[in-house]
């Protein structure tokens, strides 16, 4: 066999292995399974989806579609275990509301109502709980959703870390929206709704592990106003939206590239990053594109509507620094490529694990 033939055969083996659904083969759960990278994907696509099969689940979107008597609904759920409970710019209560609202919003659904489940650790100060309940109420009012059901459990000291919050949300599909990874098309512009990496950076500083001080706040906010503006400006030309939380913008783009078998090209120089996040990332050797956000969406928009979509986004409070950061291409499928600000190109891969556990 010629050398070229052998190399081709090896590449073929790799390609076959990569295109198989990931298998969940670990003996025990590690924090990597919660970090949003490859191990998380193995857990979801290798264990949960095969066991619980449903078309909505298999779509692996941020919210699942439910059709009732001709009405399109979206249903989603999310748990919050952030440490510390309060951090500059927000707290676990606000995250719990905004996170679920945002999963509905990016699925093109207007958020209607949430349920709230609290797991509380024995010994938690009532004052802390009261503050979080107030934060939940405020965030729900700001996002225009009602809390319509709830549950509380108290577990022994040590069995939880202060408090964990789970919210589920229901929304109604917006008639202007037609979004999903299957609608991605080569040529689509990739937009991000503002500077990336602020939530993750704020949490790192709040933990004080680095003994650094910096003025940086979490970006937690409802994304419905941004989605509303995008749909109003570009309607069905908005092909797909994602909430860039755990794993950051890079992970979201990898998910989309893989789901739609397209390629995404990102221009690093066009990605908005605040100076503090840039400096922190530089110091710690991390890439802001992998750092979590709690109020930033990624939208893929047909090229002819990209300008209006960007202008509409920028008119929304908190999205003034929205930007077009790249585009969807056909080759090489399933890969995200970055044109670095130095002028080179590299592959922006899925995370293998996260050095920063539990940030949302």
């Amino acid at each position, binding site marked *: 066999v010629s050398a070229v033939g052998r190399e081709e055969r090896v590449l073929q083996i790799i390609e076959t292995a990569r295109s198989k659904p990931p298998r969940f083969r670990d003996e025990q759960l590690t924090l990597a399974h919660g970090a949003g990278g490859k191990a998380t994907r193995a857990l979801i696509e290798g264990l949960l989806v095969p066991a619980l099969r449903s078309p909505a689940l298999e779509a692996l979107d941020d919210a699942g579609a439910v059709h009732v008597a001709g009405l399109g609904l979206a249903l989603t759920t999310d748990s919050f275990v952030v440490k510390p409970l309060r951090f500059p710019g927000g707290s676990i209560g606000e995250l719990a509301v905004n996170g679920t609202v945002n999963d509905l919003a990016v699925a093109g659904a207007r958020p209607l109502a949430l349920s709230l489940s609290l797991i509380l650790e024995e010994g938690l100060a009532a004052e802390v709980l009261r503050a979080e309940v107030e934060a939940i109420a405020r965030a729900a009012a700001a996002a225009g959703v009602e809390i319509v059901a709830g549950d509380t459990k108290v577990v022994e000291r040590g069995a939880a870390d202060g408090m964990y919050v789970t919210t589920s949300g229901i929304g109604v599909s917006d008639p202007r929206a037609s979004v999903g990874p299957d609608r991605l098309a080569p040529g689509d512009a990739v937009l991000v709704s503002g500077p990336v990496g602020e939530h993750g950076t704020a949490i790192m500083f709040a933990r004080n592990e680095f003994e650094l001080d910096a003025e940086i706040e979490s970006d937690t906010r409802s994304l419905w106003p941004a989605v509303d503006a995008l749909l109003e400006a570009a309607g069905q030309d908005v092909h797909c939206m994602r909430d860039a939380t755990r794993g950051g913008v890079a992970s979201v783009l990898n998910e989309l590239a893989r789901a739609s078998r397209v390629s995404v090209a990102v221009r690093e120089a066009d990605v908005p990053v605040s100076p503090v996040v840039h400096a922190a990332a530089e110091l710690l050797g991390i890439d802001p594109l992998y750092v979590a956000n709690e109020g930033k969406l990624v939208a893929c928009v047909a090229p002819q509507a990209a300008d209006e979509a960007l202008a509409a986004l920028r008119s929304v409070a908190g999205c003034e620094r929205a930007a077009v950061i790249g585009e969807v291409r056909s080759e090489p499928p399933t890969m995200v490529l970055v044109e670095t600000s130095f002028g080179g190109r*590299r*592959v922006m891969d899925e995370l293998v694990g996260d050095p920063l556990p539990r940030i949302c």
Partner: protein
Amino acid sequence: MKFVDEFRDAELGRVVAGEIAAALEPGRHYKVMEVCGGHTHSIYKYGIDDLLPDHLELVHGPGCPVCVIPMGRVDDGITVALTDGVIFTCFGDMLRVPGSQHTLLEAKARGADVRMVYSPLDALRIARSNPEREVVFFAIGFETTAPSTALTLKRAKAEGIKNFSCICNHVTIVPPLRALLESPDLRLDGFIGPGHVCTVVGGRPFEFIPADYGRPVVISGFEPLDLLQSILMILRQLEQGRCEVENQYTRVVPRDGNLRALEVMAEVFELRPHFEWRGLGFISQSALRLSAAYRDFDAELRFEVPGVRVADPKACQCGEVLKGVIKPWECKVFGTACTPEHAIGTCMVSPEGACAAYYNYGRYAREKEAV
């Protein structure tokens, strides 16, 4: 950012890349090794290899301190980490390196108290605030990180901290380079010298490379322009028939290194007669252990460690890949027994290792060539 952006000027980068292309002899295939994992990271991060002509190839060297730790040492660490009452501390990237059975991350899932630290001083701080627990630091790294471990141990000794100890896996860069250079089938034209190591040891320890093996060395910084300039300096040496150690990273690397750091290292460490490197086998006098004066802080003596050598699988050919003799895909286990999810060799362990990079991006690279 001031003093950083200047070294990332894309316009200047294009100019230097053009000069590099012009300095290459047509028809000749060049291989230059960047010794240090930090350089590999920069090359990857900025897409530098993408700016270089196809017939100039960068070969990733043995300078990733995490991936060269053999399985047996990881197993020792895991045994200590699982000992009752121990708080086990290490750098984050060590957590995912496989031992014969598990990683430290998996040991943590099984109940070990494994904590990620950013500096050995953080580990010492944990020891101070947990006097009833044994705190162990899994020390890794070349001469770059060894001084900070040494300083930490000096401080622990001065403060009389009894519940702190260290599994010393510090390695030195010259012996593996010599081992690579001794190989008769080596195909490298020059070396990008490890800037951070040289900050400590200076440039002299590398003079044997041009003197004995006739290969140029340019000590390089870590910004993209540093690397491009260093590559150009190597090519200029080849072009002009010179062969010496040159220092591109003059803003940081003094000729004689950091004498204070070397003193502290000499006090706290001594050479091990042998040390095993993942993928390279045993190399004489290539690693450090704690000196007699610091033996009380040696976790390998304080705890029962298996100390069992776990052989690299015979089929693994990392050594050949590192020497540039074979391509990753020519290795017998590549892509089958050895994958990023279940890595066997050092080149697959690190996401920036030659094999992992090829596994993930090989097809893309080939398509690019075809275009």
